[in-house]
Each structure stands twice: as structure tokens, then as C-alpha cells.
């Protein structure tokens, strides 16, 4: 994992001091709430319905056990004993006091963490594949590139007041788990012409995004040599900063500019700008990548055979353990190891929420069984990336003891869900209570497993923080004369075969949402062939059969 050097430490500490000064000036009445707003946003501090919300950055989802313990400490000392993992791999606290925030940032800095640029119209946390470095389908580990981009983009003086927020994601695997085509800049680490021994670079997508106007990113450069990654990003950002719309915040994202120019003209603008800076000091050298890669070494794996007899025996004996192994663990590139997913979608808990004691338990388990590292995922779960197969039973027991062994990863209950009306001032409708309703409807595990992989994603309004456009089933909260209604979509996909969901029909009343989901899944179960997932069946049969069933029932 990346470790701060003296420069990183200085910047983070000076940032804390700067914010402490800003908050003190505000509390003394020297800085108005309106003037503080931009400053606090760029330190991750929002104003929500009931209180402030602090969003702490977890760069590309990597944290270690000590950092997790600090997150637990913050939840306990400054908040109500829990935190909430977000779809950008960050963690949010819903109840901090403004006057405590400088102290919280100080505590974070002690363990090399910060909240810089987790909100505001600037370059946000770089997100990536939660299985980076361990996935069997990985071609190149994206994390060194993420960290290089993170440093370059942190407190970049020119791109701190963009027309709108700006999100960058990086993947290095065949199966894109970072949704790069739905980012302002999406980077796919590739080898030139797909040749195993060729030069490393990036396929660059631009102008993707969710929000009110969901757009799939377009390829702006088929192959960009890795030396040029910073100058190319800078060229894109400069064109956007100068030409992006600032008169209407709903038209201010780069996707609108790319569409207005057309990708070809936009590319010409970027290339013209890039020609000026390509060979500037932004050019990276071989040694820069080597130095960064050293922070992400292969853990000291043991030489182990695939499979473990004792674990296999228990898997046959204990159906709960079996369900957990089957659903929550996935193949590792190293023989004798598994990737363990920790579901934060326990029934009756808001998706992504985790208590202080659970965080500490995860920190301990990671320390004992997974090289003291944890990842957060954009699906609002956690990952222990390097668990020996022979330890799976112990890990499961330890997680189960703190209610973190819910075996529902990838299922309809493993939904992504934004905070909605319970916390967010922009919301049209609540999402957490609907998540609960769905959890209750699908409380039969056999049914859940029979249904298999369903990516259910829910947002409380058009801003789409819950990524509903790309859910296999998407749910969008809408306001109908002051009542909460829900618009359903089917067939969205955030992976390589990116697709926006198709609208099912008129919005559905709150009480009927889980029944409508039940209907959709019934159609799927009636019509699926072989081992088709819901998404595959939908692609084959289209929206009509789903529509008929849902609205026949609702009528």
C-alpha cells in the first residue's frame, strides 16, 4: 500500500491547519457561511438535512487495519457510532459537529488519510477495481497509476474550481469492475495492441457519467503511452475548465461539453492543447512507475495447493458456511487463496453502514488473515483480498460474530443505495426504507440463490448517486405531488458491455416496489435458459414480458 513520505505528510498537515483556521474564522464571524461553503466542500464537509456530513477519502478503496481503527474511533468519538461506505469507495459520517471537523481531519492525518476533494467542483477521489492486484483476470495492477494521478490531482491549483465535479476511474482487468465508461475520464490500463510484451499504456474514455443525463464514455484515445498520462489528463482538464458550461449546473459536466463539441472536435481541442505540454515536466519516467509499483508489492504468499480439505468438509456440513463461501468469496490469482467479500447489506441496516465495533473487528480479522489490508468497493461492501483457503472457516466465524457474514454478495439484496430522503436534502424519495422492504421480501435464501446475480441499484433522485441507470434493475425515487414514487429500469450494465437501463413504464407506488421487483424476477425465472443471469435473459427477450407482468399485477 502507498505510504506517505515527508512531502505527503506536510501537505496533509498543512491542509488540516488551513481548514482549522477557516473554521475558526467562521466561528469568530469573520468568514460567512456562504464563503465557508466552497472551502468546507473541498474538505469533504457537506450540509445535509439534519447535520453536517463528512466524507473521508479512501483512495481507490485501499485502507489498512490501523486506518480502519481510526475510522472506528472517529465514528465513536465524533459521530453516532457508525459510518457509511459510499459508491465512490469513500466513507461518510452523518453527524459530525463543524467545530470537531479539524480534529477529525487531524486524527485522519495521523494515519495518512484525509478528506480533500471528496466533494466540490474539483477532481474527486480516484476510484478503481476492488480486486486490483489479486484478480485472475487482471492484466496490469492499476493502483500505482491511481496513486500517481491522485498526487498530481491533489490541490491542483488550476483545476480546483471546475464547472462541476470531475471523476476519474482506472481499471487494469479484462472485466471492468470500476465502471470506467461512466466516469468523466475512464482509464483502462492496456498493453499496446494487446500484445503481452508490449508497452503499457491506457485506453482513454471521456465524458461518461450518470446523473440526470446518463452517458456512456467515448474513446478519446485508443492508446496513450503511460509516460503521458498526466499531460493528457491535464489537457482534457484545461479544455474542460475553459469551455465547460458554468451557467447551468445541470449542463456543466464534461459529458455535456463532449456532446456539444462532438467527440472528434473535442479530441482535436485536447490534442492541440496536449501538443504544447506533452514534453513538459509532466512526462513520467520509467523510474517513477518502478518507484510507485514498489508500494504495491505482491504479498508474501505461501506456496499452497488449491483447495483445503477441512474447509471443504465444513462447507458440506454447514449450509450457512457453504452459502457464504459460494456467494461471498471469489477466485484469487494465487493458488490456495480466496478473495473474501464482506457484505455491508445486512438485513435491517442501511446499505453500506458499519458500526465502530464492526470496523474494529474487520481491522483485526484483516490483520490476522489478510496482510492487514482492506478494500472498500463501489458496491458499498468491503473486501479482504488475500485470505488463505485454509483460514476461510475462521474468517467466516469471526465475521459472523459481528454480523458481517451475510451471504448475499451479488444477489438482489446486495443493492447499491444512496442515502435518499433520510439524509440527503436533494432527495425526492427515501431509498433506505425501500431497501428494507426488498430485504424483507427476499428473506428466503434459497430463493435468493436461485435468482443468482442481480445488480440492484437505487437512487433517491435524478442525481443518480445510487447508479440506478446501470443496475440490472434500477430504481429511481420520484416525487409525485409530494408522494414518494419509484421509476424502475431493467437491463443497465456498468461493465465492459456498458448499457443504460430501459424504462419499464410509469412509476410505482412505494408499497408496491418489492412486489414489482418480485414480478420482474418471476418473469426471469420463468423464461431463463441454462445459466442465464437476469441481464442475459433481458437482453434476449426485451422489456415487454417484464412490463406486462408488472403492470398487470399493479393494475
Amino acid at each position, binding site marked *: 500500500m502507498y505510504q506517505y*513520505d515527508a*512531502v505527503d505528510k*506536510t*501537505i496533509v498537515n*498543512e*491542509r488540516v*491547519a*488551513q481548514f482549522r483556521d*477557516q473554521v475558526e474564522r467562521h466561528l469568530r464571524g*469573520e468568514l460567512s457561511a456562504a*464563503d465557508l461553503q*466552497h*472551502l468546507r466542500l473541498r474538505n469533504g464537509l457537506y450540509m445535509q438535512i439534519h447535520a453536517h456530513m463528512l466524507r473521508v477519502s479512501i483512495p481507490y478503496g485501499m485502507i489498512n487495519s490501523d486506518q480502519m481503527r481510526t475510522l472506528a474511533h472517529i465514528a465513536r468519538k465524533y459521530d453516532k457510532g457508525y459510518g457509511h461506505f459510499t459508491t465512490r469507495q469513500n466513507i461518510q459520517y452523518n453527524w459530525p459537529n463543524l467545530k470537531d471537523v479539524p480534529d477529525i481531519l487531524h486524527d485522519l492525518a495521523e494515519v495518512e488519510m484525509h478528506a480533500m476533494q471528496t466533494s466540490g*467542483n474539483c477532481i474527486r477521489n480516484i476510484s478503481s477495481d476492488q480486486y486490483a492486484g489479486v484478480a485472475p483476470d487482471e492484466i496490469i495492477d492499476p493502483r500505482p497509476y491511481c496513486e*500517481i494521478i491522485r*498526487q*498530481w490531482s*491533489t*490541490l*491542483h*491549483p*488550476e*483545476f*480546483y*474550481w*471546475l*464547472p462541476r465535479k470531475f471523476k476519474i476511474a482506472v481499471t487494469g482487468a479484462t472485466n471492468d469492475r470500476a465502471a470506467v465508461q461512466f466516469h468523466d475520464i475512464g482509464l483502462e490500463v492496456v498493453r499496446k495492441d494487446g500484445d503481452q510484451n508490449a508497452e503499457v499504456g491506457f485506453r482513454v474514455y471521456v465524458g461518461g457519467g450518470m446523473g440526470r443525463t446518463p452517458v456512456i464514455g467515448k474513446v478519446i484515445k485508443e492508446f496513450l503511452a503511460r509516460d503521458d498520462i*498526466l499531460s493528457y489528463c491535464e489537457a482534457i482538464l*484545461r479544455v474542460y*475548465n*475553459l469551455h465547460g458550461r*458554468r451557467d447551468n449546473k445541470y449542463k456543466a459536466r464534461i459529458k455535456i461539453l463532449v456532446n456539444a463539441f462532438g467527440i472528434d472536435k473535442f479530441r482535436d481541442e485536447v490534442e492541440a492543447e496536449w501538443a*504544447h505540454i506533452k514534453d*513538459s*515536466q*509532466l512526462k*513520467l*519516467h520509467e*523510474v*517513477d512507475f518502478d*518507484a*510507485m509499483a514498489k508500494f504495491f508489492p505482491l504479498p508474501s504468499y505461501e506456496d499452497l495447493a488449491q483447495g483445503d480439505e477441512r474447509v471443504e468438509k465444513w462447507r458440506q456440513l454447514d449450509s450457512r458456511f457453504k452459502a457464504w463461501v459460494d456467494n461471498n468469496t471469489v477466485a484469487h490469482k494465487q493458488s490456495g487463496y480466496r478473495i473474501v467479500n464482506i457484505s455491508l447489506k445486512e438485513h435491517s441496516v442501511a446499505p453500506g453502514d458499519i458500526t465502530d465495533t464492526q470496523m474494529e473487528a474487520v481491522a483485526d480479522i484483516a490483520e490476522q488473515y489478510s496482510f492487514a489490508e482492506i478494500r472498500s468497493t463501489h458496491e458499498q461492501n468491503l473486501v479482504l483480498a488475500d485470505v488463505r483457503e485454509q483460514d476461510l472457516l475462521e474468517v467466516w466465524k469471526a465475521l459472523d460474530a459481528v454480523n458481517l457474514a451475510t451471504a448475499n454478495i451479488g444477489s438482489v439484496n446486495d443493492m447499491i443505495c444512496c442515502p435518499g430522503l433520510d439524509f440527503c436534502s436533494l432527495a425526492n424519495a427515501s431509498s433506505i426504507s425501500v431497501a428494507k422492504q426488498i430485504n424483507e421480501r427476499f428473506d428466503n435464501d434459497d430463493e435468493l440463490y436461485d435468482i443468482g446475480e442481480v445488480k440492484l441499484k437505487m437512487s433517491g433522485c435524478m442525481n443518480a448517486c445510487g447508479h440506478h441507470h446501470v443496475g440490472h434493475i434500477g430504481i429511481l425515487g420520484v416525487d409525485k405531488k409530494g408522494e414518494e414514487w419509484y421509476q424502475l429500469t431493467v437491463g443497465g450494465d456498468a461493465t465492459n458491455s456498458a448499457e443504460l437501463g430501459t424504462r419499464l413504464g410509469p412509476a410505482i407506488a412505494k408499497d408496491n416496489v418489492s412486489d414489482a421487483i418480485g414480478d420482474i424476477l418471476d418473469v426471469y425465472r420463468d423464461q431463463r435458459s441454462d445459466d442465464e443471469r437476469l441481464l442475459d435473459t433481458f437482453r434476449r427477450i426485451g422489456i415487454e414480458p417484464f412490463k406486462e407482468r408488472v403492470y398487470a399485477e399493479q393494475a
Partner: protein
Amino acid sequence: MSTATANRAIKARAKASPDRIQTDVVNAQAIVDQQLVDNALHHVAEHDELTLETLPDGDISVPLTFYLEHKAALHERESQVAVQVAADEDVADIADHLNDIQMIVLPFVAQIDGRSYSLAYLLRTRYGFKGQLRAIGYVRLDQLGFLSRVGFDAFELHEGDDYQAALKAFLEFSEVYQPSADEGRLIFARRRVTH
């Protein structure tokens, strides 16, 4: 001019681009090269009746279009003439005149506008402008650090802001990660030496 005229709005102007200053601006103080100085520069707003004859005496800054139209006559004035470049203007339009200009003024109208950060960067690095780059309008203590990194070296603060307090903004950060129009170097280049 008395020091009591800080941010005095001198005359109303005709409706134009919202990115241009709407009324004339005069501030009694400025920060130049991180020093507090007395100031008498009069920033003239663009409006339909603006002519050479109606210009105030003394040091002035004028809108870019007006400057381009009246360049020769303006340079005959005894006092200083600076040029305003608004956020929606293109720095390329001023490129051929940079040798004749000692100061460019970039107004932040009503709020922070990221475009002027890129304009300043381009003026310094792409066009090699060596004169003064001055920020006026919505210019706050908390922006000074970043503004100076992209090439600004002079500031007239937002109405009512404390100049003395603002001076310490330049000391907030002693390290940076990336190059801009200042001396800042790419962090990876710096680490190359130590590795």
C-alpha cells in the same frame, strides 16, 4: 484619492457579458509581490458610451475590446494603462500585444471562476507574459495561494476583506505535488533525485 474610497462603484454601465466588471472599481490597497501597497488603479467598466474622452485621469485598466480598438491613443497617455481580460475572453486575442502591456487584470465577477485560473496559466507559460497579473473582484484570502501558483502576482481583495490577514495566505503550503506557472515541480521528478 483618499483611502476611504475602497471598492467605490463609480458609475453604472450598460448591460454586457456577465463575465465583465459591471461598474468601475477602485481599491485603495493592493497586494503586489506579497507586499501591501497603496493603490490608485482605476478599473474602467465596459459600456456603450465609453470613449477615450470619458476615461478618468491617472492609472487605469480598460476592457480588452476597448484596448484593441484604441491602443495607439491609450499608449499616448502619461499614466499607466492596463488591460482587462474577462473569463469569457480568449488570451490569444491579446497575444500580439503583450510586449506593449505591463499589466493584465483578470476580474472575478461575483464569484470564483476557474476559467481565469487557466487564462493566467496560459498567459504565463504559453505566452510568456512577464508583466503583472492582477486579480480583482471576488478575490478572497483563501484563494490567494492557488492564484499565485497559476501566475497571479497582484491582488485587490473582495470588498471589506482584511489585507493584513490575507498576507499570511501565501505561507499556508510549503509543498506542492504538481507544476503550474510557479516554481512548483512535479513530485515524481523531485523524488527521482532522492531514490
